[in-house]
């Protein structure tokens, strides 16, 4: 394994170990997602037909805000404890630091989704536990983490970082949200899994675009 991947693995392992001990991100985000689901039930009082129509939107809005919660924590603890400077001092390619945060965020959110998807499926009586939806959720989560991690690093030094992060990242994530909602709706409507369909192409394209742009920009972001 090259030094780059050893460094990447060390950074991801560090984030997993810290999460295991602090239990801040996964537990907090999971409770948030389940609370939102309960509130949807009370606030919308959905009929079965309406629920089927609204489920993709409700699911993705919830996952989007849950992702923002997780991303807000991605660099905040590093910055507040001064360890971000320790990473900046180390002879690691800046993309390693970025990718480690993306991987950790995707893993944390996937754990949340592992519980949230069955809960949404049961509460809204929606066919969400299919391979197509799972792949769509993974792609949406990856795109969210890819763009969000870059902006979380940009916002971390700001006094109002909790407000700034959604303001920066939500406009950028609008196309991702639209593609994910439509792909999920098509799958729920019983569409076969046409991997070349426009919504999946858009999802994959956005993931590649966010990851590529962030890897290029992250160096400049961390250097000052």
């Amino acid at each position, binding site marked *: 394994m090259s*030094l*780059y991947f*050893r*460094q990447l693995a*060390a*950074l991801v392992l*560090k984030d997993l*170990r*810290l999460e295991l*001990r*602090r239990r801040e991100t996964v537990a907090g985000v999971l409770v948030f997602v389940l609370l939102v689901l309960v509130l949807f039930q009370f606030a919308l009082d959905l009929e079965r037909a309406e629920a089927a129509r609204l489920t993709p939107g409700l699911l993705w809005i919830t996952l989007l805000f849950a992702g923002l919660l997780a991303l807000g924590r991605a660099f905040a603890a590093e910055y507040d*404890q*001064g*360890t971000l*400077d*320790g*990473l*900046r*001092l*180390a*002879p*690691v*390619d800046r993309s390693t630091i970025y990718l480690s945060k993306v991987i950790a965020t995707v893993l944390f959110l996937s754990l949340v989704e592992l519980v949230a998807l069955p809960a949404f499926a049961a509460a809204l009586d929606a066919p969400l536990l299919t391979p197509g939806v799972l792949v769509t959720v993974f792609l949406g989560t990856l795109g969210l983490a890819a763009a969000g991690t870059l902006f979380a690093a940009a916002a971390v030094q700001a006094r109002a970082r909790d407000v700034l992060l959604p303001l920066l990242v939500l406009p950028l994530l609008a196309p991702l949200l639209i593609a994910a909602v439509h792909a999920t709706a098509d799958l729920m409507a019983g569409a076969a899994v046409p991997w070349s369909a426009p919504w999946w192409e858009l999802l994959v394209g956005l993931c590649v675009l966010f990851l590529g742009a962030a890897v290029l920009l992250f160096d400049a972001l961390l*250097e*000052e």
Partner: protein
Amino acid sequence: MWQPASALHSESPSDSQRRVVEAQGLVKFYGATAALRGCDLTVAAGERVALVGPNGAGKTTLLKLLATLVRPSAGRLWLFGVDAVRYPAVVRRRLGVVAHDTYLYRDLTVAENLALYGRLYGVADLRRRVAESVAWVGLAGQADRRVGALSRGQQQRVALARALLHAPALLLLDEPDAGLDEAGQALLAAVVREAAISVVLATHALERALALADRVVVLAAGRVVHEVATAGLTSEALRAIYRTVTNAAKQGPDEGSRPAGGAALPSPADTPVGQPVSLGSGEK
């Protein structure tokens, strides 16, 4: 990590084999406030240099520039003969830094913290090296304790072990005594005095600077205002020099703001503050 081949060659105007640090006219603005206003500094291989000066003199900013944590607003900086402003990644492996922040994860154990940084620096035979480092800073029984459960002084010892784990060629220390007990200070002194590496140490304690360094550099208002070798220098003489040059700096013109219209900063040599103060007594 790709770097142009030219980055690995000496671009410094002086002999890179002998000069570990060569800074010319370093300027650093934070917003409109000047933290450094034209700093020149050289450090030879194996030399120990202490930076002293009043609060706000620019010691920490200069150390952050040397550590490649921030970029200068103007000026040139070569580390090991490499242009560290253009190619910071090339020099980072050879730097060890102990600062106010320990750079340690409070929820990881001592050994986990050191192993993490060891992997990032590509340290070979890591398990043995970590065990040796922990023992060396006197925390052999504490390797599996979380850093957050240690006292400030113990954390500072771990920070010292982290900074030296990868055998750096230049050690940058910013007030490294913080929280250290007598034994910890002795350990630090042994590192600075006995390790065959270059050291730049920022401190408020003149006695400490005198005891540990070969040369004391006095900073005031973002400039180097005096340099003196410590060989044969008494504590009283250093105090007298310090008082004189920092008082002279206080009386100099205040140029703490960025010049309007992007005008060039006046050269340090243009002002009385910038002139190294010549003192007849106390120096050898």
